[in-house]
Each structure stands twice: as C-alpha cells, then as structure tokens.
C-alpha cells in the first residue's frame, strides 16, 4: 500500500500523538461500563482486537487477507466447544481457540503466500469459504443453530465471569494485552522487516531476507490474535455461530480497518467502534446493514483511503502532501 509510506515519514510525531490517545483511551475504557451498556462495549473491544490483528497483516505487512473470519469464527467454535462439551475453564478454552486459529493460520498462510497481491486475497477468501462449508457440515458446530448456552464459568477457578463487571474487566485486560502484543510486534526489528516487505518486497528479498517466512510468521500471529478476539467473544456472548465464519465477516473487518485507517495503531479500534455502533443503530431502524456497509466501503476507497485516523494525522501534522 503506497500511501503507507506517508505514515513512515510522520512516524515520530504520530507516535507521540498515539501515546496521548492511548492513555486517554484506557481511562475511557475503564470508565465506559459505568456509562454504557457493558455487553456493547465488550462487543466493540472484541471487534477492535480483531481489526487490529487484521491490520497487523494489511497495514504493516501489506497483505490483504479476505479470510480472517475463519480465524475469528473458528476460534469461537473451538473455545465454545471446549468450554461447553468438555467443561474446560474459560481461560483454557480461550487458549485452545487461539492455538487453533494459529494452526489454521499456519496452513492457510502456507498456501496463500505462494501467490502475491490480488491472488493472495482470492486464495484466503476461497480457503475461508472452504472452512465455512466445513463448519456448515461438521457435527460439532451444531449447524445453523450454532453452539449455544456456553457457560462463562470461573476464571482460574476464582473469578466468577457471570458477574458483568468481572467479565468486562477480563475482556478489557485481554484487549489491552492483545494491543500491546501487536504494538510490540510492529515496533520490533521483526516488525521493521515486515514493513520493508510491504514497501518493496523484491528489495527485501535482495537484501537476503526469507520474505516467505516473515510473511508466514506475520500471518500466523495475525490469525492467532484474531482467534483470541473470537474466542473471547464466544465467552462473552455465550455462543458461537456460522455468522462469524462467513465472508461477510471477513469483509467487515476489512471495512473497520479501512474506515479507521490502514497502518495506524488506533485506526482499527476507531473503525471497529464506528462499525459496531452503526450496526447497532441500524439493527433497530430496519435499514439493511449490507447497503450501508457497501456504501461506506465505496466512499472510503474513492475519497477517504487514509481512513479517519490517517486523515486526522495528515491534518494535524500539517504534512498532508502526496495523494492518499
């Protein structure tokens, strides 16, 4: 993604701004459940982590995956099944979901990185659709009904997650850990190599990096974190359904990232909040969500490619140069 180079130039300034925003955001999130319906905030947090995990791949490695729903929804199934059918504690279920998503990421990533660009997107989409068909037929997913009535249980056998505030702060903790992990990955030497692949893959190869391995590693990390988000969502909502493995869900996470700002740390969080909020509003209005999503998609691509946060950086930092 070429305009991402722009962010590079402003990296230092935007980093300072992001720190401020992050501090403000954490305070807001701690206060949020006392002001807003906690389930809604938890949904936002799960999708925000999902979008950030996706952005690790698109924004920082330059790979557009059109199949991230497989990891998100797949992990939800694994976690829900382990907790409900085997009676595992929630933390073990979430770990299993994350590990399962990482394993799926390894397989899908291994196949998908054999092609580049547009083909990569199509392959991930096709493989995720294959997983969707598998979920429709496999008995353990309970088909159209999904796995319902998943017990929230006791965290580490002590903290009762049925208490809404306990659940909320557990989700918030996972979210912050996830975001911190992504931040560490992006700002490590490993993350720098990922960015170099995004900027100029051939050059990275000529410098001696095994680009394929780095891409695969990024893919697996992104899949695992998307899985973490999905598994937590299954515990929060106490069910896992086919909705989370559809291609529409893969599209939705792309929209969140695009709307918020590809290649920014805060952007996907903002995008996820807006998309989830919009869906909640539309759900009661009767206006079809897909039309709204589609229109936002087209507008973003045509005139708003930097996204809200990307655009804000460009404005505030006064160096908007170049075409977005």
């Amino acid at each position, binding site marked *: 993604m070429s305009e991402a180079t722009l962010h590079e130039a402003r990296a230092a300034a935007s980093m300072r701004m992001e720190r401020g925003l992050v501090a403000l955001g954490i305070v807001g999130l701690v206060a949020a459940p006392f002001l807003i319906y906690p389930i809604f905030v938890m949904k936002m947090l799960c999708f925000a982590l999902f979008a950030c995990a996706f952005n690790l791949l698109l924004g920082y490695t330059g790979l*557009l995956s059109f199949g991230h729903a497989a990891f998100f929804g797949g992990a939800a199934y694994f976690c829900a099944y382990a907790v409900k059918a085997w009676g595992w504690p929630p933390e073990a279920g979430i770990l299993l979901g994350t590990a399962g998503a990482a394993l799926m990421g390894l397989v899908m990533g291994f196949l998908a990185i054999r092609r580049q660009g547009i083909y990569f997107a*199509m*392959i991930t989409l096709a493989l995720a*659709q294959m997983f969707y068909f598998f979920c429709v*037929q496999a008995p353990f997913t309970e088909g159209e009904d999904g796995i319902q009535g998943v017990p929230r249980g006791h965290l580490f056998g002590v903290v009762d997650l049925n208490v809404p505030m306990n659940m909320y702060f557990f989700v918030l903790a996972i979210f912050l850990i996830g975001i911190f992990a992504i931040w560490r990955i992006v700002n490590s030497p490993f993350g720098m190599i990922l960015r170099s692949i995004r900027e100029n893959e051939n050059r990275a190869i000529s410098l001696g990096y095994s680009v394929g391995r780095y891409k695969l590693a990024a893919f697996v990390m992104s899949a695992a974190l998307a899985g973490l988000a999905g598994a937590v969502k299954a515990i929060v909502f106490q069910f896992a359904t086919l909705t989370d493995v559809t*291609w529409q869900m893969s599209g939705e996470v792309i929209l969140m990232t695009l709307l918020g700002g590809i290649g920014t740390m805060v952007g996907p969080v903002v995008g996820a909040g807006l998309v989830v909020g919009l869906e909640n509003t539309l759900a009661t209005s009767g206006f079809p969500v*897909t039309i709204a*999503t589609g229109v936002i998609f*087209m507008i973003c*691509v045509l005139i708003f490619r930097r996204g809200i946060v990307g655009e804000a950086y460009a404005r505030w930092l006064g160096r908007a140069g170049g075409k977005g």
Partner: protein
Amino acid sequence: MTMIFGIPIQAFLGQLLVGLINGSFYAMLSLGLAVIFGLLRIINFAHGALYMLGAFIGYLLLVHLGIGYWPALIIVPLAVGLLGIVVERLALSRLYRLDPLYGLLFTFGMALVIEGIFRFYYGVSGNPYAVPTLLAGGTNLGFMFLPNYRGWVVVASLIVCIGTWLLIEKTRLGSYLRAATENPELVQAFGVNVPLLLTLTYGLGAGLAGLAGILAAPVYQVSPLMGSDLIIVVFAVVVIGGMGSILGAIVTGYVLGLAEGLTKVFYPEASNLVVFVIMAIVLLLRPAGLFGRDA
C-alpha cells in the same frame, strides 16, 4: 441397469450433466473476470452481483412487463453492460493508478450494495423463472434423459466463450485490447483511445456476467444470494487456472464443474469443498496456476 464404478449410469451421467451446467457458468464468469483483470488489473468482486442482477432483471421484465426470455437474452446483457460502463466511468477509472487491492475493495462494496438492495426488496428466498416454451421438455438420448433447456445452456455458454475468445484473439479490436494489456502507454501513443477501451472492456465483462445471469435464471432459483454463493468458487477457479490466458479460464471452468459433478456421485459431502481442495493442491504443485504466466 448398466453400472459404472458401482453407480447406475443414469445417476452418473445425471450428475455429470449438473457438473457441466455448473461448469458452463464457472467458465462464463471466470472468462469475464479474466478479460476485466487482463486490461484493468481489477478483480471484479461485483461479478457475482452483476450475474444476480442479470437474472433479476430478466425476472422483473417477465413479471412486470411481460417481456419473455428471448428478448431478455438481448436486453439484460445490454442493461448490465451499461451499468458496468457507468460504474467504470464514475468510479473505477479513478482507481487505476492505485494498488489493485483498492479495485477489489471497491467492487466488494458495490457487490454488497447491489445484493443488499435486492435482499431488502425481495428477501432471500428464490423466485422461479419458467423455462421458455421453445425449450421446455426433454430429449431421450438413449442412454439418458436430457432436459432441453440444460442442453441449450451448455451450447449457449460454449458459443459465448468461443465468441469472446475469437473477439479477443482474432479481431482488430481484440488486438488493440491485447496490446493495451501488454503496454497501455505505447498503445495510447499509437492513437488508440485506451480509456475508452478500458470502459468498453468493463462493460463487456459486466454484460457477460448479466448474460450468464439470465441463462441461469430458469436453471437455478432467481435469488439475491445466487451471485455471492458462486463468485467465491469462481475466484478459486481463477486461482487454479491463472488469469494469464482467456482459453485457460474457460477450460478450467468447465473442468472444475465436471470435477464437482463427479465428486457428487462418489462422495457427496465433499462436493462443495472439492474446488477449494483442488485449488490447494494446484498451489502446492504449480503456484502460478495451470495456465498462469504471472506468479
């Protein structure tokens, strides 16, 4: 009853025919995708939605205006092609300088909007579209019973595919198109109106999708979801074939339809997975695709 591999031959050929019909649509759609991608470097996610739109326009023409199948066969591709031309002029033409991924994302949004509109007004259930009287009934081929309309679909799709191939490989317009695929600046320098060529190409691709849609209307139910179900399989077909060659896209479409039909005979549970499995195998053995030039 004659048996083949322990399966009654009627059932075997019946599934093979279903496979061939599906393959006809895979071929027509992947052909359109390949033509558009070749020149515009855009993967048209809206291809499935345009196919659905074609079927729906045919259905609405019949229900509201009483215009039957045969006129629809002309009107529908023109209408969908025209829509394609408008979209290309207004939006896609602004995306050529960007990463091709933006084209995919834009057409994805477009697909969501088109599908969303029809879902809103017509729900998700299918609407039947009667087979035209001329092609009603069937023919007994001696070894199996062939519904006439299905036979016509196979013939029509072959005509469409071969016609498009001839247009691109054998005509002057096609030679401009191929040249512009290789080097648009140079072709423009020779005085060919490349932007117009791009517009017409997208219109042609969209028209092909619409034509496939109206052909499909009597075979499948006309439903807002018919396009998105199909487009992902067609993407897998395109990955398998590679988009470097028009003929490759066509052949891969038919072959994978047949492969799907065969799977339905021997292991029905896997029939909607088989195309994806073949895609995975091809990626392992021949990453550039069977007919691919660009890895």
